[in-house]
């Protein structure tokens, strides 16, 4: 502090992003666009604000650990990005506070709220209070390889209406010699990817909600159905590659294999489209992505049997941008956070890498060029579901992953479900909080 003038306001902002590494584009956007623009805008208002970006580039668990340690010691950046599902546990621990408490009532009157769909706002809410601004959202679909489909005699505009149709397609692919017809994430090695791109969408498709009306879903029929599908795919039918589920780097591998034309159907989020098979800068580039990669909504087990009686389901998540309760300049910090979510900022940010922003006004403009994102925002988001922002969720999720792992390695779905329920009761404080 001594190095700067007394009235200079210093702000820091942190993300799990770093130039030259993980999420480099996001890091560059903050450092090269947001900060100078924001400082200029503040200067115009007569405020001398200096913003510093604190990069990071590690696993989410490690990032979370570091944030928790920082916040616990009343340290850390002023503006902090967190994953949506951490909101609950951070709030319970007192690491983050409702925005209005931290930065004043004007946070409720931020112009952006009006542009953000209700469901996405829900991500930021815990105990009916808004703890953060949403940064974006996403959705899950079934990707498929049109070339392989053609070989197997399947249509290029494939849209299965039930799980059975997916299995049927898989069988045809298998007959056509596709090494791995269907790949749905399972097992513990993939961590949260197993939940989001695997068991949770399936659970929803079978009509189950992981947390509903204050109770956690136990060894319910929907769960058994979901695990049953895993068994159908990985239990010796040859539809899926059970090994891939167990490898520490299995998800990378599944990406590479899909890009290589070895996987027929893959359940993934829009990140797969944007960041993996992206012909320009994906990690497993597919030059002919737009021609070869098809996508379809995830069907319910049977039409109308999904949650809320839907025919199709999906899961969404999203990151949040929150204000450190210990910030010396919470108001300016909020301004900075809000600035990053202004239409100009979002448009600038998505210029290179388009993604679904929280704002409908922006989405309308930027998504037009991208068929998948359009598809998601128009068809998927309206019927998607979110994970409960509760502190115990990560452990429940881990238990779910465990259950899928057991099925993949040969346990009966009913047994795995029962084991899961037993574990769940231990996690959420007794059988009273579990519905089966």
């Amino acid at each position, binding site marked *: 502090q001594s190095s700067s003038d007394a009235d200079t306001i210093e702000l820091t902002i942190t993300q799990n992003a770093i130039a*030259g590494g993980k999420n480099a584009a996001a890091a560059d956007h903050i450092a090269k666009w947001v900060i100078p623009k924001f400082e200029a805008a503040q200067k115009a208002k007569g405020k001398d604000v200096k913003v510093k970006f604190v990069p990071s*580039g590690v696993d989410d668990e490690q990032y979370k650990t570091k944030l928790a340690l920082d916040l616990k010691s009343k340290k850390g950046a002023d503006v902090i990005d967190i994953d949506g599902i951490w909101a609950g546990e951070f709030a319970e621990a007192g690491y983050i506070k409702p925005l209005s408490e931290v930065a004043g009532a004007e946070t409720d009157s931020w112009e952006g709220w009006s542009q953000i769909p209700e469901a996405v706002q829900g991500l930021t809410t815990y105990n009916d209070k808004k703890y953060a601004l949403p940064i974006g959202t996403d959705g899950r679909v079934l990707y498929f390889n049109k070339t392989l489909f053609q070989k197997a005699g399947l249509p290029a505009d494939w849209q299965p209406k039930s799980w059975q149709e997916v299995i049927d397609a898989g069988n045809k692919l298998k007959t056509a010699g596709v090494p791995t017809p269907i790949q749905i994430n399972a097992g513990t090695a993939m961590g949260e990817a197993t939940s989001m791109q695997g068991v949770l969408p399936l659970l929803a498709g079978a009509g189950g909600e992981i947390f509903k009306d204050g109770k956690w879903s136990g060894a319910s029929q929907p769960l058994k159905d979901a695990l049953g599908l895993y068994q159908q795919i990985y239990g010796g039918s040859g539809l899926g590659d059970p090994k891939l589920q167990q490898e520490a780097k299995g998800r*990378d591998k599944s990406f590479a294999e899909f890009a290589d034309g070895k996987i027929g159907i893959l359940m993934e989020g829009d990140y797969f489209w944007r960041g993996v098979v992206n012909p320009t800068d994906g990690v497993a580039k597919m030059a002919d992505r737009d021609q070869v990669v098809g996508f379809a909504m995830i069907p319910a087990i049977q039409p109308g049997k999904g949650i809320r009686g839907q025919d199709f389901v999906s899961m969404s998540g999203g990151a949040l941008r929150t204000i450190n309760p210990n910030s010396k300049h919470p108001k300016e910090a909020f301004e900075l956070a809000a600035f990053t979510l202004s239409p100009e900022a979002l448009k600038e940010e998505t210029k290179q890498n388009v993604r679904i922003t929280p704002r409908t006004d922006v989405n309308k403009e930027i998504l037009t060029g991208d068929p998948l994102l359009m598809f998601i925002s128009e068809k998927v988001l309206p019927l998607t579901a979110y994970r409960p922002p509760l502190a115990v969720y990560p452990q429940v999720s881990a238990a779910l992953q465990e259950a899928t792992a057991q099925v993949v390695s040969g346990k009966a779905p009913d047994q795995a479900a029962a084991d899961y329920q037993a574990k769940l009761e231990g996690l959420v404080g007794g059988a009273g909080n579990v519905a089966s």
Partner: protein
Amino acid sequence: MTRHIVGRIGFYTLIALLMAFFTVPLLWLAAAPFTSDPTYEVSLPDFTFTNFQAILEHPYALGSLYNSLLLAVGTAVLVVLLAALAAYALSRVRMPGRDALLYALLLLSSIITGTAAMVPLFQLAVELNLIDSQLGLILILTGGLLPAAIFMLKDFMDSTPKSYEESARVFGASPLQIVGHVVVPLVRPGLATIGVWAIANVWGNFLMPYLLLSDIEKQPGAVIMFTLYTEGGQANLPLLSTFGLLYSVPVVLMYLFVSKKYGFRFHGGIKR
């Protein structure tokens, strides 16, 4: 005679197998950085230097190596210095319970290198205002390595004859002179070995630097290495392999230097 020949053939076969065992895993590191689009497969590289160029342009890569060097050398110097003094005193002066103390510390040091210690260490650093300070990190790392270093060095010192010191002593040398003129030169290979051991230990440490340093400009190579993954957690193989190579070279050079200059070996075991 034939038995002799069979023995020789056996010996060289065994040595060849051992060398293969220790070399094969390293091949990838030798090939991938020079390949334009490396995979997990070891293939003959096309000898491109674009990967190196990319690393050189990386905003943190080279700086992080410098930080690694700072942390590793700083810790090693501190470990060697403090451990040598302590091991020497423990080796030469009878102190009741010194062995029990050493074993206890050795055991405690194992808990401190575990994950569960991160909260106490973090909060300790906060309290002592050592957060985001490389010095603080050096002190913490030193604390973890000291017991084993003292343990190993004491073995080393125990096996060094005392007559050199006594001889210097009769000539009137003070204890500090004795340590400086006689003991340190005599145990130099041991000090060098412990130094390299400490460097290698610090060089690979990821979690502590990551948690205790917040300024990316201060982070060592281990942390930067982990940033070379994408949002979804995929390894950026060209960068990772190239950085891995650059990140390995300093330790290897350090080892070669030390082993050439001071010798690299262990002495002794527990004396009976």
